[in-house]
């Protein structure tokens, strides 16, 4: 892999991380859960046409949901 491609991949990784953090911040600022979340993810998967495998996407979003729930409950516990 050439350095330029590696640089682009690192930039995308940083952007993904920044977006995950921003999502966590937004979620943390809300008092309630997102009730339509599962349906919204299903809808995204149905419409998805990109090269990333659908089962992989489902896993990624599942992991985001799990960790977000843990993060939110920790915040609630901390009061």
């Amino acid at each position, binding site marked *: 892999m050439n350095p330029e491609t590696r640089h682009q991949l690192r930039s995308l990784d940083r952007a993904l991380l*920044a977006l995950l*953090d921003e999502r966590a911040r937004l979620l943390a600022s809300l008092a309630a859960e997102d009730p339509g979340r599962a349906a919204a993810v299903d809808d995204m998967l149905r419409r998805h046409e990109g090269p990333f495998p659908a089962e992989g996407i489902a896993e990624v979003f599942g992991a985001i949901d799990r960790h977000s729930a843990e993060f939110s409950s920790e915040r609630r516990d901390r009061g």
Partner: protein
Amino acid sequence: MILRFVPGTAEDAVQALRERLEGAGLRVLRSPEEARPILAVAGKVPKELAAELRAQSEVAEMVQPTGELLLVARAMRELPSVVDVGGVRIGGGEVVVIAGPCSVEGRELVLEVARKVKDCGAHILRGGAFKPRTSPYAFQGFGVEGLRQLKDAGEAVGLPVVSEIMDASDVPAFLEHGIDCLQIGARNMQNFTLLKAVARANRPVLLKRGLAATAEEWLYAAEYLFEGGCEQVILCERGIRTFEKATRNTLDLTVLPLLREWSHVPVIVDPAHAAGIARIIPPLARASIAAGADGVAVEVHLNPAEARSDAAQALLPQELLGIVSDARILAAVTGRRLHPPRADQDARSR
């Protein structure tokens, strides 16, 4: 000339140098910077004195800014400055969204818009009470009553408010009604009497770029505010007049990275007045944040067709929601973040 001292320089050494400069008939201004002492010297420093200053071990750096731009110059601060508008910080790595009606059109209407813009995630409510209109027959705003209605709406939903001031004699009314940020409009950017009066008001100022002003002239207008005692200034790019007729003005995003180099003052963008066409505002808002703007200001109306001013550039609340969502994404991927909503205020808005 700007003198940046070595961090930790003793105050009496700074004072001694200041007295030396003032003794030479020069005006010396001090930066509020705490990380290190920084002095700005107005006027031409004679060669011999400049050499003397250069030889001082306490002077880390001597910076010659553009023209006589001193207090706004980047070298006057260690970090870009942050302006606090009623608890909302503008600059310093957070992106804000300012939204509201072009004109305050009545108590119920402005309150309804305030609720919507708050729900969409905007941070500051805007609304014109004194309207500078091209035609004397166009709606001129409700004046002081408009300020009252705007502030009441802002308080009801928990948003600070910004409104345009057109006349120095109105400063007391703006203060009395608790307007959190005074806007100097594009047409008044070089109204120096107004700039001086507003500078004394001890409130944050949103300084729009004049429609035919260069970036340097715009910064000189900001320098007037700083020189007059106002350290809380936000610049607002709103498009400049060019040969292009397809849009109301031409949005000049080229100034954003330049202003970052030249000045520590935060900069936001008003894509609505630049475009004058509602449907092209969202991409311009995205471009503004991607280019480094500290925020965007847009106009929102529940029924744009019935807006009493600037109807063609008013957005619907759902369009504002799209702008806030995009701002969140672009702020994150450019290493910043959207200013967080305040939980206590969420509760009050329901």
